[in-house]
């Protein structure tokens, strides 16, 4: 070890011992994730308190939602997250080709989410659902579309990660890019784990 790396040694990296605290991914993405969680949190609270003043309306219109599509999308996001974990684990084990394949599988699940969601929107629009048709529809469309845009950005990030993995850019000690993108994707999944029961199930 030369003098330069010795002076940089205190910074925790993927090579640090497992028992030393380490945030997986770039610090900047974690501040971004906190900002996103706050925004979704305000949205969720606004939905819950508006619902409390419009119980019958919300209950009736919630029953018209396609809960099967919501559940299927939860399964797709969770499975995509699992594939991303496997991709990170494969890269950490110096298996870039495996990592790229797991990422491609995650992208497939993400595209499945997009297809299901677009089908759901199409059916809703045919039934006259719009932002101005009722308070419930306003929340349903704006909340799910806000999340939908995060899924689209997540897919762009996964595609960049797939390209990086394919080119062998991620390996032990050089995991930051992969971990950063993975943290973003998991955040998109995390938010849906509240959105699904809140909007589709609780009545």
């Amino acid at each position: 070890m030369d003098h330069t790396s010795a002076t940089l040694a205190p910074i925790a990296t993927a090579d640090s011992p497992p028992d030393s605290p380490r945030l997986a991914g770039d610090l900047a993405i974690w501040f971004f994730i906190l900002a996103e969680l706050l925004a979704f949190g305000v949205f969720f609270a606004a939905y819950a308190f508006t619902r409390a003043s419009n119980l019958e309306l919300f209950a009736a219109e919630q029953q018209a939602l396609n809960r099967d599509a919501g559940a299927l999308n939860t399964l797709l996001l969770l499975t995509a997250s699992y594939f991303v974990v496997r991709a990170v684990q494969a890269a950490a084990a110096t298996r870039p080709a495996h990592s790229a394949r797991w990422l491609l599988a995650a992208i497939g699940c993400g595209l499945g989410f997009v297809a299901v969601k677009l089908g759901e929107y199409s059916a809703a629009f045919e039934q006259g659902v719009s932002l101005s048709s009722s308070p419930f529809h306003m929340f349903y469309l704006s909340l799910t579309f806000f999340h939908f845009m995060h899924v689209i950005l997540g897919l762009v990030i996964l595609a960049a990660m797939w390209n990086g993995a394919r080119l062998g850019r991620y390996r032990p000690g050089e995991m930051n890019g992969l971990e950063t993108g993975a943290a973003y994707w998991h955040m998109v999944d995390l938010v849906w784990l509240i959105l699904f029961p809140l909007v589709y199930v609780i009545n």
Partner: protein
Amino acid sequence: MRADVHGTPTRATVLWAVLIAATLLTWAMGEGGLGGPLTLAILASISLLKGGAILLDFMALRHAPLLWRALTLGWMLLVWALIGIAYWKGLAQ
């Protein structure tokens, strides 16, 4: 495979199966048309457990400084607490 902050494939696979089962339970509760405070408490608990697994294992926060675990898990608890308060407010009307 060496064990690092991202855990082992076996652990990830077991967690994925649990998350899928929990999702199917949430879906079934919706299909059953269940309501009331107990149902809300169960749905919130399932969501919190799933979120905890995503945060601690998939996002590897189990191995991160305590502050980050507190901020993210605290966010989930706060959101469900607000949903619970709003639900109680609705019942009281």
